[in-house]
C-alpha cells in the first residue's frame, strides 16, 4: 500500500494527462451524491437517477471504445446489442414469459442476469461477427448498421413474444440478500434481509462499481498482448497479419467484448427503468454512443469517458431544457408575444425544441472540423495525426516543392 502511494506520488501526473482525468472522474463520482444533495436542496433522487442513466451511456461508450477505438472496427449498430441485453433481462426476470407461448415465467436474480446477458450479447456479437469481420472497414460498418436496424424492428414486430411497441414492463427489481442500514437512510444501524433496490443512490453505487470494474478490465486489456494486437490491426491489418497476429480471432474478440459491455449496460438499463421498449434502441442510440467515443478521443479510456459525460449532458440535459429556457428568456426581455403560437409560428418554446437536431448536427460538424482527434486523444493517435503516417503526405510535399 505504501509502495503504491509512493509510486503515485513519484509519478509526475503532468507527464500523463490521463491520470489527471482519471483522478478527476474518480473524485467526481465520489462527490456527486453530495453535490447533488446540495444542488437540489436535500432531494437528490432525480439527479442521482440521471447520473445512473449517464452511467449506462458510459458503459456503452467503454464497450464501443474497444471495438472502434482499440481495434478500429466501425460499428454503426451498437444499440442492437444493448437491446439484446435489455430484452434478455426482460425475458428472464419478469412475469412476461407467462403471456408468451411458453406460459411459464422466470425470475432470475439481477446479478446472475448481468452475467447471462453479457454472454448472450457476446454470442450475438460472435454470430454477427464471424461471417462479416473479414469484410473491409466500411462494409463492416454497413453490416452492423443493417443489424442495428433489424434487431429493434424484430423486437417491435414479433409481438407474440415481445408485446410489440408497448414493450415489456414491470421487470424485477434487483435484490440484495443482505444490506446495511444506517443513518444515511434515516434508520438506526442494522441489517436488512432481501433488500429490494428502489433507491436511486443504490443504483448509482452499483453503476459506479460496474464502471470501476469495466475501466480496470478495459485498461488491462489495452495493455495486454491482445490490446497490442488490436492496435496493430487498427493501424495496418495486412501488416498485422504478416507479423503473425490472428486477425480474425482478435477482431472477433473485440467485437464480442464490445457486445458484452452492451449487454451489461442493457441489463442495468432494463432493471433501472423496469421497462424495455423497441423505441429505445434505434439508430440514434448507436450514433450517440459513436459520437461519444469519437468526440472524447478514440482509444483513450479517460477521453471517451469525458466525451461520454459531455455528450450526455448536451443531448439529454442541455438540449431538452432549451425550449423552457428560450420561453423564460423571451418572457424576461419583454417579448412574451413570441411564446404564443400564431399562424405558422409555433411559439418560441416549440421552435427551440425543433432546433434540437440542428444544434446537435452543428456541434458534430464543428467539433470534427476543429478537433478531429477528439477532445482528449491518446498520445499515439495525436502523433499520428500531426506527423502523418499515410503516403498522402508525400504527394503534398511534392506539390509544395513544385509550387
Amino acid at each position, binding site marked *: 500500500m505504501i509502495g503504491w502511494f509512493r509510486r503515485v506520488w513519484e509519478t509526475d501526473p503532468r507527464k500523463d494527462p490521463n491520470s489527471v482525468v482519471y483522478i478527476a472522474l474518480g473524485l467526481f463520482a465520489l462527490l456527486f451524491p453530495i453535490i447533488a444533495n446540495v444542488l437540489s436542496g436535500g432531494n437528490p433522487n432525480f439527479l442521482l437517477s440521471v447520473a445512473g442513466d449517464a452511467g449506462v451511456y458510459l458503459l456503452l461508450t467503454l464497450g464501443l471504445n474497444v471495438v472502434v477505438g482499440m481495434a478500429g472496427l466501425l460499428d454503426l449498430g451498437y444499440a442492437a446489442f444493448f437491446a439484446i441485453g435489455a430484452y434478455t433481462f426482460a425475458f428472464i426476470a419478469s412475469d412476461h414469459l407467462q403471456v408468451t407461448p411458453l406460459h411459464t415465467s422466470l425470475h432470475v436474480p439481477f446479478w446472475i442476469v448481468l452475467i447471462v446477458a453479457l454472454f448472450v450479447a457476446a454470442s450475438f456479437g460472435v454470430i454477427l461477427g464471424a461471417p462479416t469481420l473479414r469484410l473491409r472497414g*466500411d462494409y463492416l460498418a*454497413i453490416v452492423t448498421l443493417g443489424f442495428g*436496424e433489424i434487431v429493434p424492428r424484430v423486437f417491435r*414486430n414479433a409481438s407474440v413474444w415481445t408485446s410489440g411497441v408497448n414493450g415489456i414492463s414491470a421487470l424485477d427489481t434487483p435484490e440484495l440478500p443482505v444490506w446495511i442500514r444506517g443513518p444515511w437512510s434515516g434508520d438506526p444501524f442494522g441489517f436488512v434481509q432481501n433488500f429490494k433496490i428502489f433507491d436511486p443512490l443504490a443504483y448509482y453505487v452499483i453503476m459506479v462499481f460496474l464502471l470501476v470494474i469495466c475501466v480496470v478490465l478495459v485498461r488491462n486489456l489495452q495493455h495486454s498482448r491482445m490490446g497490442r494486437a488490436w492496435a496493430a490491426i487498427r493501424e495496418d491489418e495486412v501488416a498485422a497479419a504478416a507479423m503473425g497476429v490472428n486477425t480474425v480471432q482478435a477482431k472477433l474478440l473485440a467485437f464480442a467484448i464490445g457486445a458484452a459491455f452492451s449487454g451489461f449496460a442493457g441489463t442495468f438499463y432494463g432493471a433501472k427503468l423496469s421497462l424495455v421498449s423497441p423505441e429505445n434502441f434505434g439508430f440514434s442510440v448507436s450514433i450517440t454512443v459513436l459520437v461519444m467515443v469519437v468526440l472524447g478521443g*478514440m482509444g483513450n479510456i479517460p477521453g471517451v469517458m469525458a466525451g461520454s459525460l459531455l455528450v450526455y449532458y448536451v443531448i439529454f440535459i442541455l438540449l431538452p431544457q432549451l425550449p423552457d429556457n428560450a420561453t423564460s428568456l423571451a418572457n424576461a426581455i419583454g417579448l412574451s408575444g413570441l411564446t404564443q403560437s400564431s399562424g405558422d409560428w409555433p411559439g418560441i418554446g416549440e421552435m427551440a425544441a425543433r432546433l434540437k*437536431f440542428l*444544434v*446537435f448536427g452543428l456541434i458534430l460538424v464543428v467539433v470534427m472540423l476543429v478537433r*478531429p482527434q477528439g477532445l482528449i486523444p491518446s498520445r499515439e493517435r495525436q502523433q499520428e495525426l500531426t506527423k502523418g503516417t499515410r503516403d498522402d503526405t508525400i*504527394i503534398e510535399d511534392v506539390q509544395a516543392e513544385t509550387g
Partner: protein
Amino acid sequence: MGAVGEAIRRRRSDLRAGLTGRALDVGLYVLIIAFLYVLATKVLDHGADYLVQILFFALANGAIYALIALGYTMVYGIIELINFAHGDVFAFGAFLSASLIPVFGLTEGQVWGPLTIFQLLGVFVVTMLVCALLNVSIERIAYRPLRHAPRLAPLITAIGVSFFLEGAMFLWKGPSSVHYPDVLPDVSISILGARLGVKEITVWIVTATLVVALALFIDRSKLGKAMRATAQDRDAAQLMGIDIDRTIAATFFIGAVLAGAGGIMYGLSYNTAVFDLGFSAGLVAFTAAVFGGIGNIYGAAIGGMVLGLIRTFWDGYFDSAWSDVVIFAILIMVLVFRPTGILGMRVPEK
C-alpha cells in the same frame, strides 16, 4: 517435414473453409427457392391484374431508389465516404419542390398543356440546381478539410450534416408529414386489368433520361473521364494534372442533381413528405448501391430497381412491417456472400 506438415494443415483448413462456404451457399439457395415458392403461391392467389399493378409500382419505386443510389455510389467510388447526408439532400429536394410548385404557377387539378410541362420542368431545374449547390457546399465545408484525417472523421461529419439537414427541415415544416401538391393529371391506361398512371410513366421517363445522360457523361466527357481516373487512383490522377477538388465537387454536384430529381418524383408520386424521409429512403438506396457493387454506376441503377422490386413485392404480398427487416437482411447476406455486390469489381485492400 515441417513444410509438408504446414502444407497439409493448410490444405485441410482450406477444405474445411470450402465445405462451410459451400454449405452456406446451398443454404442460401434453398432459402431463395423456398421464398420464391411461397411468393409464387401468393401471386397465383391474388391474380394477374394485382401482379401487374405491383410490378408497375415496383418499377417506379425502384427508379427513385436508383436515382438516390447513384449519388451514394458515385461519392463512395471517388472518396470512399458513406455520405449519410445524401438521403437528406433527397428529402430536401422533395421539400423544396413542394414549395416551388405554387411559385411556378402549378395548382392541383389544373388542365395540362405544353405550358404546364415547361412549368414542371422549371421546378425540376431549380430544385436540382439548389440541391446540387447544397451538396457541393456540404462537400466544401464538411468533407474537404477532412480528406486526410482518419477515416472516421468525415463519416462523423456526414452524420452531423445529416442531422443538421433533418433539423433544418424539421424547423421549416415541423414534425408531422406535409402534403405535397398533387399536380400530375389523374389519367391512367388499363393494361391487363391494372392501372398504369401518369405518375409511374413520368418517373420512368425522367429516370431513364437522367441515367442515360449520366452514363454518357461518365463515358464520353472529359470530366467523366477525370472522375473515373480519380476514383481509380487519386494520387496518380493528380499527378496527371487532374484537378481533384473540382472533380470531387462535380461528383457531389451530379449526385445531388439526381437526388433532387428523385425527391421531386417521390413527392409527385406519394404526395407526402416528412422531415426524416431521407433517413429511411437513404438506407434503402444505400443498400441498393451495395447490392449492385458500390462504386459501380450501372450496379447502383440495377440495385435500385431490384430493391424497389423486392420492397414493393414484399409490401404487396406479405406483412409490410417486416419489409425493412427483409431489406437489411438482404444487405447483410449480400455482403457476406458476395461482398463486391452483383456487378462490383474486386477492390484491393488498401
